[in-house]
Structures are given as C-alpha cells and as structure tokens.
C-alpha cells in the first residue's frame, strides 16, 4: 500500500505532503486528504478494535455512514473517512469506547436558521446535477446539497469512458469528465445554489429537511424535495466479512480513484456486475493485481465488454462461484472460494484459497431511499431521480434527472412545455439491461478479390443484410483506397446489445452504423453499403468506451497485419520493439507479437493506441493485450476453511447470522423484536447494512416476506454533534483543549532521531 505516483488516467497531486502521526509513527498526508486515505497510503488499514469484542476495524463504507473507521484525532473520536488530515494531528487507534473530551466552556449557541427554497435537491451526482440544470432552464430557485467536497457524486470515481448515447449523455467521455462538465454547467446557473459538505440528516414531519452544512446545522423548507441520493452497496454475509480489507467497490474507488492511494496489492472481487468488473479494471490501472473475480451466476451480469476487457487483461473470472470466507487475523490475508451448484450451494471439493489483501464486495446496489420514504410518510412533496429511484447506469441517471427536473417544473407551473416523448424513450433505453449476445464469428482476412468475407455481421437479425450482398469495395474506389491489395477495417468485439453509440459518430467515412431508433443494437460495418473504404484513421478504436474495437490494417503488408488496440495503461507500459501478449475476446491467449507503435494523442483522451504486428489469420481475433501475469491468479496450495456461523450480519453491533437465525427459528417475525433482543440496527449506520441481510436470513429460513414486520425507520441519516444542533460555533475556543499546531519539522526530527 502506498500512493499511486503514476496513473494512466488520473494526475497524481503534486502538492507537498505534511506530517502527522499514527500511534506515534510519522505518516504524511496531502492537503485536504481524509485521514483514512493518509493511513492507507502509509500502509495502515486496521484502524482500531471494536469495543464489543476487540475485532479489528477499518474502512468499510468510506462514506461517513458507518463508524468502523473511527480513530482518535487529537483525542477526539472521529470518522477517519470524513475527517481531513491536519498537519501535526495525532491519530490513535480506537480500541475501546472513546472518552468524551471534558470541555468546560461552551461557545455561544445560536438560533438554527430556517431557509426557504423552491426546490431542494439532495445529491450532486449525475441525476441531481442534470435535474438542477433542467430546473434552471425554467428559472427555478434551486438549492443543491451534496455531502462531499466536490460535485459529481460517484462520477468523481469513474475514470472509464461511459456508454450511452453520444447525443444525450456524453457517451464516450470519462465519468470524471462528465462530472466536471455537469458541475461547471450548474455553476453557471444563477438560480442554482450549491452547498458542498452538506449532509441531509432527516426529512421531518413539519416539511423541514435538516442539513449538516460543514459544522453547522441548517433547516431547509423546500416547496419541493428532489431526492437524488444515489445508491448504497449491498453487503454480503460470510465468515470474515468484517475484517479490515473487506469493503465495497465505492470505498475502493474512493481510495484509489479519488485519493490515488494504492489501497491494495492483491485484490479479489466478489460480483461480476458492472460495478465489480469496472472496479477490477480500475485496480489494474492503479497497478493493483486482481487475483480473481467470482460471480454466483453462470454468467457475469455486467456488460460483456467490461467482462471481456477484464478477462483479456489477464484476470481470472470464476462464474458459478462464491466466496466462502475471508481469512486473516488482523486483516484480510486470503480468500476462500468454491464452485456452487444450481441451488447456489457450494460444491464440496472445489474450494480454493487465494492470497490477497483485499476482498471487494460488488454484489449489487440498493437505492438510498430513506428521504423519499420519510417525505412520502409525512406528505412532503417529493420526487426521486437516478439510482435513488431505480438502479441503472449513470448515463440513465443523467437523463432521469433531466426528466424529473422538467416534471417538477411542470408540477410547479413554471413551464408548460411537456416532457418530450423521446426523453422517456431514451431513458428506457439507457436503463435497459444488457440484451442478447450476438455470435460474431471472427473474420478471416482475404484479399480484395474476396471482399465478401470482409464484413463481419454474422448475426441473425435481418438489419442491413443487403450490406453484405454486392457492395464490392473495389467497385467504388475512393481517393483513400490503398493501391496495394491490402486494406484497413475495424473489428467489433462488441457482441452484446447495450445502449451505446459513440463509434457511429466518429467515422469520417460514415461506415459504422447503429439504428438511431435503438442504440442498443450492436454496430454494423457498412462499407459495402456506403461504397467507401475505411481509411484506417483509428478514431473508432479510441472512442469505444468498451475498448471493444480494434483496427486491422494490411495495407503495408498483406501477410502481417498491423492491429491497432486501445490501451488504457499509459504510453510507457509498452514500448515499440517489445513483445505483447495478445488475447482474444474471451481472454484466451492468441500469441506474442511485436509492438510496432505506441501512440498517445491528446484527442484520444488518455487512451493509448498500441499497434502490434500479427499474422493475418490471427489479426482480426486480437481483442486486447494482457497486462497481468498469469501467476497472479494462482491459488495457494492449501485451502483455508471458514468457521461456521460466525459471520457478522450487524457490523456496527457485531451480531452474527447465527444469533439472528436462532431468533427467527424460535418464531420471531418482527425485526423490531430482533433489534430489542440483539441491538441489531441500533449502531451508527442505523440498519443501512444489515436490514437487507436480515431480510435474506428470513428468506433462507423459509419465512415469507409478508409475515415479517420491518424495522421502524428513524432519523438521523448520519450522527451529528449536540453542539452543532445547538448552533454552537464549530471550533470551541477552549484553550486548554485546543491542540497546539505542532511544528511539522519537529515531527520530522522525531522520525530521524
């Protein structure tokens, strides 16, 4: 674990670090960096012990929702993931209940302000920002609040290029850049106010939303509330699931992509949806080995292009497998997985253990819906957009926000312009799950005399079937037509229907086609139909968000093709003259080929184009280059067996599945009664993690959902200091308690001494 000093997409901070201490040892932090990231960068991922049973604690949500990363900062208990590091801060692990600092004086308390706004948007992610933009179009008074220090929501963590429609939602652009663009658009709207570091705490029955803004409590009375609060990750119950090193993809991406901390050396991923697949790719880009990925279903649920990309980088993907346990004493040291049968039961004898330091849980998302639910309960006017409404891709959230914004403007009679019909259609398309997989037979390369084999649409759909017939390339030569027998053409390793169309927009010859009526179709190469030839410009290769287009060019040499491959690992990872391992779309090795050229062009937005020389029988099958050595995915010689029934369901109060299962089997059907007996759900997170897990235990015990009484939801969303609620100024002027800013040099001196 260390800082990431080189990254193919992100630019590491060049700011000077400053010293602080953890357990007396000097560590260094960047200005504005959260303590958790500084600790990780220094190699500490066990932050303390749980007061109940001494179990090691570390990062879990990295989002201020739980309290597992609590540390003592200058004697004050704080959440490490939400507390910026300060020069000279003295951090100590929290091993027992913290002592409340004995402040004898109280700063002046004030009245809590109540602010009236037309629309309050909770959440500055893709949905909230788009909604704000749409509301601004109608001149509406909008307050947008976000609990982070920058806008963009999870876009801030998305270093990959987005799928979707190039017209509607900036497809082909990296999530981080979409976030910046939306945020900058919003900042130009005079009627939209934005509050950062502002966490919604509760929607109250009097129509007021309590907000913690920096260290001040503010009450907001909106005429309309828009919850664009996104999603939270589902947790998973298995032995070792609370060890430091087991956490969600959001936490991982926060550490790696936001804070550029190499949070792991060897990562194992649980879950083959888009979140897990993308996180794996991000890990590779950060120089982290991805030991493997398990998916319980027979196929990964995420986009096939994401899956394929990961596979051909060299990451083993185990479908119909599950995690049996995370193993380790103070933190994760290994993970044990096994194959599962159709009933999702582990198959005896298939267990394997892999050394790893991090197990990333990416088994799905749940909407953050407590504000919507409270507002509905209290009759407060509310809309919900983005993932908070329905889990989908960020591109869908952008459009969902836009539509919801218009709907609110209509509701509040600030516009009479109805929602255009194609908006709803676009949203439906963007939200759709991956469609069928097309069997595209990899082409073989012939000479121009046999042009029929140059098009690769081995598909059942009748679309453009005539394209194949007699569009003889040689019959309609263009100025770019090569003089030799060789030619250039793109190969689409994109075989699954997903909403995406950037490739169609960049071809200067107009040779790539997706029916605009439904961008879920896979692209067709329509050179024959258009009567023009590919000029080998490689624009389609560099725009494809899925890195699923290569360009085969035999114009220089008909036997040895130049294959242009998109590569997002910087321009120094491979050099001309080196050998590269070329993989087919499934991740199988095709061979080792010379790298002819490595081109990094600014217009390609950090996607490097690598050209390898490959024989023509293999050229078109090359889909990517392996970046990870095969030994990374080797299992340990011995299987580590999990302990039974010790898996934690309520991680705040450390309640096991066994305890809860016993209560269910004794006849309990009211989750509130289970809470009474065990304290489950009474911890810092307030049931955000355990409630879905308890619901699953009920199902496992054969109790139908309608027989179960749910936990009564209670505010607050996150914990807030009494002094803040009292309107006391943030920094008590208590001289005896105030920390003397330590001279950084003296700390440095200590380390040298």
């Amino acid at each position, binding site marked *: 674990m260390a800082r990431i000093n080189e990254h193919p997409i992100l630019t590491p901070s060049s700011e000077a670090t400053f010293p602080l201490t953890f357990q007396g040892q000097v560590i260094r932090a960047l200005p504005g960096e959260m303590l958790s990231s500084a600790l990780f960068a220094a190699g500490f991922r066990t932050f303390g012990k749980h007061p109940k049973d001494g179990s090691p604690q570390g990062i879990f949500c990295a989002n201020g929702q739980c309290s597992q990363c609590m540390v003592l900062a200058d004697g004050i208990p704080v959440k490490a993931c939400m507390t910026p590091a300060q020069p000279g801060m003295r951090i100590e692990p929290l091993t027992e*209940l913290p002592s409340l600092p004995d402040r004898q004086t109280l700063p002046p308390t004030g009245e809590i302000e109540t602010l009236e706004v037309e629309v309050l948007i909770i959440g500055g992610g893709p949905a909230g920002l788009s909604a704000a933009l749409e509301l601004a179009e109608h001149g509406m008074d909008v307050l947008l609040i976000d609990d982070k220090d920058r806008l963009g929501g999870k876009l801030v963590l998305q270093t990959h290029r987005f799928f979707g429609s190039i017209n509607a939602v900036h497809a082909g652009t990296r999530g981080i850049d979409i976030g910046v663009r939306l945020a900058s658009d919003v900042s130009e709207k005079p009627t939209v106010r934005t509050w950062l570091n502002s966490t919604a705490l509760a929607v109250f029955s009097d129509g007021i939303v309590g907000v913690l803004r920096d260290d001040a409590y503010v009450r907001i009375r909106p005429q309309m509330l828009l919850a664009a609060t996104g999603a939270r990750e589902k947790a998973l119950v298995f032995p070792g699931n609370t060890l430091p090193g087991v956490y969600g993809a959001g936490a991982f991406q926060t550490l790696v992509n936001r804070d550029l901390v190499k949070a792991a050396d060897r990562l194992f991923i649980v879950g083959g949806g888009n979140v897990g697949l993308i996180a794996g790719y991000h890990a590779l880009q950060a120089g982290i080995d991805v030991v493997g990925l398990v998916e319980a279903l027979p196929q990964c649920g995420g986009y096939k292009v994401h899956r394929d990309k990961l596979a051909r980088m060299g990451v083993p993907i185990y479908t119909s497998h599950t995690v049996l346990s995370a193993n380790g004493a103070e933190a994760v040291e290994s993970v044990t997985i096994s194959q599962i049968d159709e009933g999702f039961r582990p198959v005896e004898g298939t267990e394997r253990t892999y050394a790893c330091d991090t197990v990333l849980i990416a088994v799905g998302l749940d909407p953050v819906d407590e504000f919507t639910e409270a507002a509905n309960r209290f009759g407060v006017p509310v809309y919900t957009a983005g993932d908070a409404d329905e889990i989908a891709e960020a591109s869908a959230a952008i459009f969902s926000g836009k539509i919801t914004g218009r709907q609110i403007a209509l509701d509040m009679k600030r516009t009479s312009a109805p929602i255009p019909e194609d908006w709803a259609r676009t949203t439906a398309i963007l939200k759709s799950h991956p469609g069928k997989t097309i069997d595209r037979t990899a082409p073989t390369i012939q000479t121009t005399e046999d042009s029929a084999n140059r098009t690769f649409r081995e598909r059942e759909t009748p679309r453009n079937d005539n394209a194949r017939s007699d569009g003889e390339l040689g019959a309609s030569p263009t100025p770019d037509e090569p003089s030799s027998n060789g030619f250039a053409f793109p190969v689409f390793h994109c075989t699954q229907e997903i909403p995406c169309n950037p490739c169609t927009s960049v071809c200067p010859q107009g040779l790539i086609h997706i029916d605009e009526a439904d961008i879920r179709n896979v692209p067709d190469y329509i050179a024959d139909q258009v009567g023009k030839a590919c000029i080998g410009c490689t624009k389609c290769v560099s725009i494809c968000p899925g890195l699923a287009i290569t360009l085969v060019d035999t114009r220089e040499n008909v036997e040895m093709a130049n294959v242009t491959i998109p590569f997002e690992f910087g321009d120094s990872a491979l050099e001309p003259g080196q050998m590269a391992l070329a993989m087919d779309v499934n991740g199988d090795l095709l061979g080792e080929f010379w790298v002819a050229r490595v081109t990094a062009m600014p217009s390609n937005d950090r996607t490097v184009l690598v050209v390898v020389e490959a024989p023509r029988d293999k050229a078109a099958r090359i889909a990517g280059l392996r970046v990870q050595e095969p030994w990374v995915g080797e299992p340990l010689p011995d299987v580590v067996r999990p302990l039974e029934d010790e898996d934690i369901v309520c991680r705040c109060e450390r309640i096991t599945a066994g305890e809860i299962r016993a209560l269910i089997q004794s006849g309990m059907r009211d989750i509130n009664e289970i809470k009474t007996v065990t304290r489950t759900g009474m911890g810092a997170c307030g049931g955000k993690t355990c409630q879905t897990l308890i619901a699953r235990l009920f199902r496992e015990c054969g109790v139908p959902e309608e027989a179960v009484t749910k936990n009564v939801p209670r505010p607050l969303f996150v914990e807030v200091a009494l002094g803040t609620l009292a309107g006391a100024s943030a920094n008590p002027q208590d001289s005896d308690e105030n920390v003397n800013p330590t001279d950084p040099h003296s700390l440095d001196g200590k380390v040298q001494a």
Partner: protein
Amino acid sequence: MPAAWAMARSGLRVLVVDKLASAGQGSNKAAIGGIRATHSEPAKIHLGLRSLEIASTWEATYGQPIEWETGGYSFVAHHAREEAILKNLLETQKASGLRIDWYDAEALRERIPSLAPEGLLGGTFSPGDGHCSPMRFGHGLYVQAVKEGAEFLFRTEVTGLETDSARIRAVQTNRGRFEAPIVVNAAGAWAAEVGRMVGLEHPVRPDSHEGGVTEPVAHFLDPMVVDISPGPGSANYYFFQHATGQIIFCITPSPSIWGFDTRETSQFLPMVAKRMVTLMPRLQQLRVRRTWRGLYPMTPDGSPIVGPSKEVEGYLMAIGLCGQGFMLGPGLGEVLDRLVRDALTDDDRIVLEGLSPTRSFGGHAALK
C-alpha cells in the same frame, strides 16, 4: 406486560392482546429507561420503590441482562423556583423512606463534575434510583410472563368489549372473541378508546415527547439528570448515560403537543441540544445518532388512573400512566395481581387510593 407476568406467576390464566407485532412495540420502546422512586405522591413512591427492586434485581434473578445501573437521579436547580419545589418535596420523600438529599452547587458538581457551574444553585440526588434498557426490560417481562404461562396474541386488535348486566364478559378482536371475567385496560395512549367500548369516558389523552440517543462514549455520567426549569418550547428535559455508553435524552414540550402523531419534527433536536450543552458543555461534541417521538397518556392531574370500575364489574383500569408506565409498571402489575386475587396489602391500598379512578382530578403532581 408486568401485570401479565405478575398474574400468571400467581397462577391466573392470562391472555394479552396487542395490535402491534411483538412485545413492547407501543410506547414501551419509546421510553428512555429511567426508574425512580423519588416522586411526590405516596402512591407513586410505593410503586417506584417496588419497580426499582424488580428492575435492579432482574438480571440476578432471571439471568436476563437489562443493562440496569443504579446511577441515581439528580434534579438540578438554577432558579429559586426549582430550588423551592425540590426542597419542599424532600420532606415528603424522606418521610416515605427515600434516600434523597439536597446538594449545594459545589457538592453536586463533585457528584456530577460535567455540570456547568454557571448559575447552578444545587440539586437533589437520590442514589437509589437508576436506569436500564426499556427494550431489554420490556422484553424480559414478556419472556418471564410467557414462562409463567401467560399467552400473548400480537397483531390482534380489540374491536369491542362485551358486557352483560354491567359485568364484563368478553373481548372481541379481529382474531376472535375471548371470554374473561376480568379485563384489564392497559392500552396506554389508546386507553380512552378501549374505555368507550364499555361506555366509559376516561380522562386520558396522549401528548408526545421526543427522545434521542447518541453514539456511545466511555462512562462519565452516573445519574439521570433532570432539569425542571422551563425553557423556550420546553417544560423540562432529562438525560442519562446508558450502560452502553450512549446518552439517552428526552424533552417535555411546552405547550404540550396533543394527539397521536409520533412523527419526528425538526424542532426537537436544536431545542434539546441547546439546553443539554448549556447545562453540560462536555456534551457538545457527542454525536446524536437517532431520534424518535413517543406518547404520554396524560391525565388531568398528572397521576395514573388505577383500579376497578364502579360501572362495569370486572373491568380494571391501569391507564393514564403519564409517561411513567415504564418506571411504575413493574410495581403496578403486582398491585393489580393482588387486587384481582383480593390480596391487597396496606401499601397497595395507599396506591389505589391515590390513583383511584373516582378521585377528584383537581390537583397536580408536583413532580411529574
């Protein structure tokens, strides 16, 4: 639940019907957990003493941890008015055998060092009082009641009470009709509704109070601290540190918020936080975790209504506990049991006299 437990223990056949899904899901779990004997009326003092005895020995007797701590209660005074009220009460309280004394500001701050010295005149401290988990204790009573043979029917709503020649005969519910010679109305905030089923108008109506709980911190506070001085929007407030290390707190709104609405408002937290951190600045960095609102079934004079009905034979009232059902309930359950079995003690008679349904409701409890 305490009545069911006590009666089943005495060998009576007991059925409890409750419209909610499990035990203690009404107002019990909204209680914050204090139990004291330091009341102002003899009836409540008797009930409180017995409740204290039951709660403080519960874990040792039944092996169920209810997170009990004998931390005491401290009523603090910052104005001559409170000092006078509290000092006046001391005499009655001491005469009833309660351990309670007045401490001047300095002495009180020795007991509770975190109290801000500003304006503190002093306060009472009663070391025998204490606090526990309302959820745990409530559930413990339920489990023991079941062990003693009491039956519970949850998700069962009472739809009517049958009488026959001014005698109770049966309880009708959405899950059937249950005959019983004795029916106890212990319906808390909903007591008046049940009373109407036998044609009686009970002077019980709920108002709501809001409570909250913080994150846990290392132990630093022993007693329940009660501040009975009025503030803007509140009549009093109180808090204690639970065995888990969490501070649990509550405020009494003024004017009262009448009705059954238990939805959280935005008013409570800023109001109670300001009072708490002013009284005890050490609390300023303590983070509030959760907040809720519960119902106090109030009576005109602030004291419970307990006893048999004159109009309907076999209909017993244990209603209008005025937010003290949790702390008085255990003692009261036993009194009801002895009432049913015609085994009342002299102390019980004092209790039933003080809380009689036919009393004049003109007075006011000095300490609610």
